[in-house]
Structures are given as C-alpha cells and as structure tokens.
C-alpha cells in the first residue's frame, strides 16, 4: 500500500502529476488516482489515495466488478463494471472515483508506484506488507452525506489534526 507522511508533504502535487501522466499521457487531477489537496487555513497539504482499509467498503459491488490483487490493490474489471457508482459512494475518503466513464483507484503501478518515485520529499512510500489495516469506520459515519471531493477534504483535515498538534507542541 501507499503510505503518506503528511509532515513531509509540501503540496507540490508531483505524485498526482506522475500518476496521471504515466497512466494516461496527460496531466489532470481528475485522471490521477492519488489526489492532492491543499488546506490553506491549516497549512496542511497531502495526497489522498486508497489506504487498503480494513473494511474494504468498495468491494461491495452489485456487479462484482471489483476484486483484490496480490498486492492488496483494488482491480476494476472494465467489462463487468456498469459505472453504477456504488464503489464511489462507498469509499469514506473519496479514494475511488468515476470520471468520464472510467473508475479511478490506485493500482500500485504493478508494484513500482510512479507517485513514490516522483516524490522528492519522502512523503510517500510503498509498503509491501501492509500489516494491521486501518479502519475507516469512524470516518465513514462522518462523511456519509458528502461527495468524494468533500470526503477527501474531511479526511485530510482529520489526518492533519495530529500534525498540527505536533507543531503547536514544538512551538509552545
């Protein structure tokens, strides 16, 4: 899985650019499977990407179009998928999203993620053995009524709280 260290992220979006470019030859955050947000009032920048959560909410696909790959990544079958949007609605953090007839979710680039290679700050790392998987049950409750973009914003802000506490302690 992709691990993010928010304290090192500067918000440059090189990860997002690399993701879109190496998958599609184009640049746009809509085409990226890792999406960076900048929360200006909090000084928090960070990418939101599939964290391979404990619950795997997205797998509850009515068409069974989603399966898990050997690295724990979500695989979407384009032939089975009907673009019903159930997976997008299910993900509590907006890490899976449909745009222009395609489901965008992190595929780990076959084990050598381009976003990790693009990050000059060491803010994103690839962890082969995910170990104990994080639960998104609490986040799920809070983001129920939100769209994917709002969910990403909520999740990043929630993650940023701990970092901001660290900053405050250091500067107290």
């Amino acid at each position, binding site marked *: 899985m992709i691990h993010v260290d928010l*304290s*090192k992220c*500067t*918000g*440059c*979006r*090189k990860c997002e*650019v690399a993701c*879109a*470019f190496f998958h*599609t*030859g*184009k*640049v*746009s*955050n*809509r*085409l990226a499977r890792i*999406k960076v*947000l*900048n929360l*200006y*009032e909090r*000084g928090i*920048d960070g990418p939101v990407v599939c964290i391979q959560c404990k619950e795997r909410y997205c797998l509850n696909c009515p068409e069974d179009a989603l399966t898990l790959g050997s690295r724990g990544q979500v695989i979407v079958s384009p032939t089975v998928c009907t673009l019903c949007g159930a997976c997008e609605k299910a993900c509590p953090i907006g890490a899976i999203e449909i*745009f*222009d007839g395609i489901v965008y979710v992190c595929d780990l680039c076959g084990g050598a993620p381009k976003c990790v290679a693009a990050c*000059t*700050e060491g803010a994103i790392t690839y962890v082969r053995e995910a170990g104990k998987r994080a639960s998104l049950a609490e986040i799920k409750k809070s983001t129920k009524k*939100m*769209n994917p*973009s*709002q969910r*990403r*914003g909520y999740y*990043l802000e929630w993650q940023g709280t701990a970092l901001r506490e660290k*900053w*405050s302690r*250091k*500067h107290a």
Partner: protein
Amino acid sequence: MLEFGYGGRILRADLTKRKFQIDPLDASWIKSVIGGRAANSKRLFEELNADCDPSGPENILIFGVGPLTGSLLTASAYYTVTAKSPLTGILGDSAAGGQFAAEMKLTGFDQIIITGKSDKLLYLLVTNSGVEFVECPEYKGRKIIETTNAIRREQGDSSIQVAAIGPAGENVVSFASIVSSGNRVNGRTGMGAVMGSKNLKALAVRGSRPVMLAEPLAFLSENQKIDQEILNHPEYKKRYQLGTTMLMKDLNNIGILPTRHFQEGICDYVDEISGQKLASSFKVKNKSCFNCNVHCSRYYLADNLEAEGPEFETLCGFTSRVGNQSLPFALEMNAYLNQMGMDSISASEVIGWIMECQEKGLIHPDDLDGLSITWGEKEKIRQVVDMIAFRQGIGNELAEGTKRFAERFGEDARKLVMHVKGLDIICGDPRGIKGYGLTYAIASRGADHLRAEPYFELTNRKEEARKRFGKEKAADRLAEEGKAALVSYSEKIALLTDSLTMCKNIGLCMDILNFERASSLLKAGTGFDYSPEYLEEILEDAIHLDHQINRRLGMSKKDDTLPERFQKEPLTRGPTKGSTVNIQKMVDEYYKIHKWEE
C-alpha cells in the same frame, strides 16, 4: 486547431451584462506570443481604450496561462493578471504561483477576459462550460482564506482554486493585490484594485480538460533533464531551505539590503530578521507551488498566527526597510497583508518614505492627520496599514500610492519617493547591482526586477560573461559595462518564463531555461515548430509591444530612470560603499540595442 499544450479557447465575461462568450483561440495569433504575460500584453494592446479610467468598467482584466502551464513541466505553476494599472496608469501586470494556474488551465481557457462592472459584489465560477455569476454580498469584508473556504463549501468541492481580493481590493486601494492558494500573491501594480472596482470578489476555477502534449515522451525526457539540473544545482540546497529569504543575508553581505528606507545598505541586526532565523525558529514545513521540486516556500507558526511565506520582499519590507528589528512582527504583517490583499512592497515604501521625511522634517504630523511615525514603531505601522486597507482618515489618501500622495509636498520630499513610473521600488539597492538598476529603470510596469532579473551579475561567472555578453564586466555587479547587453538578454528569458509559464527562480536565476531548451519543450508540448531563433525574434517583438503600450499611455524615455538618490548619493559603508548608478549611460545603450528612438 490547437490540440496540444493550449486549452485552445478564451473566455470573455461581461460583468455589467452578466453574459459570457467562449471564443476559439486563434492559432497564429497565439503562436506569435506563446502565451502567459506576452499574450496578455498583446490582448491589452489590441482591446484596451488607452484613455479609460483604470478603476472604471472599461478597463480590461485578463487572467492568462501559457501552453505548458499545469503540464508535466516542472514549476509550470504561474499565471499572469494584466490590466491598465490604477497605481501607475500604465501597463499593469502581476504573476503568482501556487495552485491556481494549473486548475485554470484545466478549464480549457488560456485567457479569461473580464470587462464591465457588476452592480453587486459577486464571484465568478469558471468551469469547462463557461461562467456562473454568483452574487455574494455577504462576502464583503472577508479575508482571502475565508473567501476561498466559503466558495469551496458553497460549491461542495475541496479542490476548487480561488483568486480573491480582500478588504483592500474591495476598497480599491491602488496597490491592492489578488491572492490565490491562500498566500500566493499577484502583488504589483494594483490588479486587486481593478477587481474591486468591478465589484468582483473572486475568480474561482475548477476544470477537467486534461493538458495534452504533442510528444509526451520527448517532453518527459527533456523534463527529466531539467529535474536533474535543478537537483544538482549548487544553489538547490539553499533555495530549498530558505527560498527567497536567503537574500536577507546575501544582500546584506554585499551592502545592498535596503535599510531605513534606502539610507543604508547594511542592517546591523540582520541575523535577527534573516531567512535563517525564520527557518530555525518559526518554520514548520516547506511549501511548494504546483509541480515544483524546489519547495522553496515555507509555512510558519508564530505568536498566535500562522501563514505561508514570507517571501524576501515582504520580509525585508517590514524589517530593515522600515527599521523594524522584530521578526515575529514581520511575520504578522505578512499574514495580515496577504489576507487583506495588499502589496507589501508598495505598503512598505509608503511607510518608509513617511518615516524618512518626518525624520528629516520634510513632513509635519499636521500634514498627516496628526500621524507621527518613526523607524520600527510597530503599533503605528499596524495602524497605518489598517487605515490604508479601509481607506480611513489619512489612509484614504495614502491608498492612492506613494508617488501620487507625495505630489502635495515640496521637491525634497517628492524626490525621496523610491519609485519608477509610479511603481515603488523593490528591496535591492541598485547602487550595488547595476544591472538590476537598469532593469528597474526600463521595466514596462515600472520599478521592477522581475522583468529581466539579471541575477547573472551576482554569479561572478567572468568567462561565461565574455561568451554571452561580450564583456567580463557583465558578471561584475558594480560595473555598468555590459549591463545593457545582459539585461536585453535576460529580459527575453524572463518573458519566456512568464509566457511558458514557469517560475523565474528556476527558469532564470538557476539558469535552467534558454532558447534551445524552450524550443524543444514547446515543440514537444504544442507541436508548433518553434525554433530558437524564431523564439528570440517573437520575444523581442513582445518587448517592443510593451514599450508601445506605454508610449500610448504617455510614457517617454525620460521616465526610464532611477530616483536621484541612487544616481547621486553613494552608500557610506560596506562592500558597496562609494558607488552610484550612471543610469543614463546604461539606458542609452539599452535603447541602442533595441533600436528605439529617443
């Protein structure tokens, strides 16, 4: 057809009629100016009624990006805003980095041209399909980030990017700024005042038209070379750690750090206000513009406040330039000015000028509604800035800009205004950087270093200087020889970075961009056959066009000069001691190179 690089469309929004129109971008028109700043200037030249009131509905406000903005190109994060300047009455423009430009690019509009005036405060929401005019009377008085967050909430999208004005822009302070990405500022020439005069609180953008390249793999390979050059650059580490705030100590070391309003070039307490001090005591992390690997900006926490920045100009402007020794105070002013939407350079000039004039007895407190202020008086500085932003009391008149305000006073006070063509001078004493002095004098938006950024003169590369400019002296900061040639070259590279649109710290100061490289990037990016020679030619044309715009707006060669202080009064100590600028000689040479008449 513009398939690659460019969005290929322009958007026109009329605020009076609340109507918009989408036009195709003409391929041969844009090819002759590349994009960004040069394209904005050309649009202004073609469509502006030169006699119009800059704060009236007739003024044209242009947001422009370039063919490689928001693309794979490293640091392609800039957009330029252009209009007739309410501060100077001539060509006005200002660029900013951050995240706004890349998102604007995704809307598929290379230029957004705004005319007219709304009867109510509103913001524009620009998407692929055009504009929504959203009335927002309740936004009146809101600061920048408040406005950004309100729009994001209202539209239910955390990725919307917003370029907004604060109270200073709403009150049409002539040096009001536009701010996007929270703290990235289009600071100069009062573009925020133009927005305010049109009752336009913000421009919000969210697009989904991807940036396509003609030859993605060729582009990738050129960009990988650029990334390597940046990471291996001798200045990389310093720029990463300090960004432009490195200049506090660097300029002080050569005796040109503006101190007490350019009376001195050395600040004895520089260690207390330096970039190094900021990094060790207040910085919590690096911040970056879109797709950059230098990450030169910073986020800081200080006495109950936090913000991104400050850049060197704000840091110097609110420390040594106005005689303030407190770094936390400068950090407070940075956050405050960015959120109020006011240019820190013009703001610090008006304050520094009053301080010096009062010290010399040229201005009496009675002339200023009883205001008496001297070096480093923090509470008074706060008060003055606040009065300007809200146009209260004497602030109402100071909001017109230092040069205009000074007109009521005697010659001794007037000549102490550090400006060229009405635009306040940046923090860098030209007596010790002669190429910069020439740049301030000839820059088409008034006193400005970014028009040419002849950073080369600080690098001491003698051999390279002989090769490029025919004279070793071009690499000697104190020499006037060879500077017209240096400036005529680097103003083209500066315009190239502004037109592509790339960061100048990287493109120019780190010497990453040249005509050959730009040619291969543009070919791979747009599919147009841009040869290095053709590029040089059209950049020269574009520089000539700026010159013509200003001629039309009443400028002449006599305006291409520097304040008397820099020509006659030498600095008294340090490595720049004894030096003055023979500006006339350099300007003459510069005109000769351009084949311009008197």
